């Protein structure tokens, strides 16, 4: 079972993590939008690990859900497109809900 990030890293670590979240999410959204279907599963798997480690747990879950659809036997191009759109919407919402970089509250 994956370990879940602790929200109580030391202040320097927490500031570093929080300060990177918006940029990470912006890049994740671009990756989800542009990734070819054939590369989607491994790309989402990897992206989920990075986002989760930066305490963006909802973003992690969104990418893992898209990975699952991409891996599922019988998934059609339309299924993947629908899942991709859902993941994009979730990531965009998470980005919108992020606190300002100087805030300590974790919303994702």
């Amino acid at each position: 079972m994956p370990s879940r990030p602790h929200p109580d890293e030391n202040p320097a670590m927490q500031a570093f993590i929080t300060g990177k979240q918006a940029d990470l999410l912006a890049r994740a959204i671009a990756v989800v939008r542009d990734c070819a279907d054939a590369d989607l599963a491994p790309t989402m798997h990897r992206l989920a690990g990075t986002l989760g480690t930066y305490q963006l747990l909802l973003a992690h879950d969104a990418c893992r859900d898209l990975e699952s659809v991409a891996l599922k036997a019988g998934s059609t191009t339309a299924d993947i497109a629908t899942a991709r759109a859902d993941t994009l919407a979730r990531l965009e919402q998470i980005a919108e809900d992020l606190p300002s970089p100087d805030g300590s509250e974790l919303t994702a």
Partner: protein
Amino acid sequence: MSETVLVIDDDSDLRALVTLALTESGYRVVEAADGPTGISQYHGHQPDLVVLDIGLGSMDGLEVCRQLRAVGTTPIVFLTSRAEEVDQLVGFAAGADDYVTKPFSPRLLVARVGSVLRRGSGAEEERTRFEVGPLTIDAESRVATADGVELDLTRTEFDLLTILMENPRRVVTRDMLLERVWGSWYGDDHVVEVHMSRLRSKVKAASGLRIGVAVRGVGYKLGIDPASP
């Protein structure tokens, strides 16, 4: 002097986070963004421990691990986003001493790094030589043999065998193994079974001996009569 950790990860975001976490905890960190650079840095810096991403690009982490194991015994902690048991087994077969599954807390990674380093430094000072039947183990030289055949064990497998041989007539509980080998433990205790399975296979392949008998719900016993020749 602080211990040096080599971090090999092609994800610059994760590498930066791991580097900061280790640096904040007093370690000196050397970074590499790919396998070949990591191997080169290993030879150049002689690190005390390697943190290695299993999912590197051109040369994957398992291959890097094998190449590092071919030239030294420096402890290796894998970063993996593959939680499936088979991947863990493959990782340990390649010679990893521990693993951390993504997503992970940097604090957890630092704790694992510290635990693996303590196992390495403490074991050599405290333990001596044990002989049980056809098995021998010398903790000072870190050499174990079965029927006279030297065993090619990872640090973790060696520590497990040492504990079993220290207690040849009793069952060693899973908790005791976790405490002695891993120290403070944050993850699933399935890791004991994985390492014990590898140890059992290596001893059997080298000598035909069957060791590490599981006692259901309790732990393991060495499984060799201490009085046997």
